[in-house]
């Protein structure tokens, strides 16, 4: 496994774990109170911060376990990155239309902020899945 592929695993696992934890928490909160009354902002900021920290930690683990490979990028890494980034761009552009429609419809900011966060999380996970599948099965 190249160091770039390990970085992608770190990024993917960090994004998935944190966003799933956040949305599970959100759904649990929504059982007791109307969704728009949930104080979601601190939790979302924690989720974003924790996602970044976990990703950095994962990258460091990837570096430490195989120092010889660090920073080496071959043509395959570049091709996989290109393909994953292209898919991410289209996924995010389409997913960001949802929050735009909600904002135009004057929906509560709870829904706008959370749909934007969901769009980011979805894009991160889809991008990583595309890259890992490309590594495993070829382009």
């Amino acid at each position, binding site marked *: 496994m190249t160091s770039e592929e390990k970085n992608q695993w770190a990024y993917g696992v960090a994004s998935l774990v944190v966003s799933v934890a956040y949305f599970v928490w959100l759904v649990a909160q929504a059982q007791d109170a109307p969704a728009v009354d949930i104080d979601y902002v601190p939790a979302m900021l924690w989720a974003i911060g924790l996602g970044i920290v976990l990703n950095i930690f994962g990258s460091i683990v990837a570096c430490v376990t195989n120092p010889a490979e660090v920073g080496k990028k071959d043509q395959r890494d570049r091709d996989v990155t290109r393909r994953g980034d292209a898919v991410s761009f289209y996924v995010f552009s389409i997913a960001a239309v949802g929050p735009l429609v909600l904002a135009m419809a004057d929906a509560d*900011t709870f829904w706008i902020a959370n749909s934007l*966060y969901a769009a980011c999380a979805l894009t991160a996970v889809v991008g990583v899945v595309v890259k890992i599948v490309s590594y495993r099965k070829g382009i």
Partner: protein
Amino acid sequence: MGKKKTPNCDEEWASMSRDEVYNWIFALVSLVSTITYLAILVPRKIGAPASEVSYVAPLLWVFGCGMVVGFGTALAVRLAAPKDSKVRDERDKEIELIGQYVGSGFVTIGAMAALVLSILEVDHFWVSNSLFVGFLFAAVLSSFAKAAAYRGEYPEI
């Protein structure tokens, strides 16, 4: 980062690849859409509180007209193009990547701004417009970056 020289800068219109022609259509349509939208929106906003500016109808009209004109023209070009016109080659693919990098930057900036604004409970006018103007800027700047890449040197991504 290596530089690649675009061969034969004196190409005639007829020898442009289809992707380059599509890109010019996209560039002009997105530029006209952006100017039109801002020309409608900015005078409405001046002197009025954000909550009273009606922006939804212009936004939908600009988006709808841009789509219809853009895809309509592209379809006309596709039908009018000679059968032996150049199809997509490696250079088209590399330039497509430049567009994606520029575009994703602006879409991301617009979306991050919208996330911060909605967390701060700012008026919906600002949330919608940071997203939509982010899309418009992404479209204009990515297509003009691609147009420039077709005509000159471009960095290898």
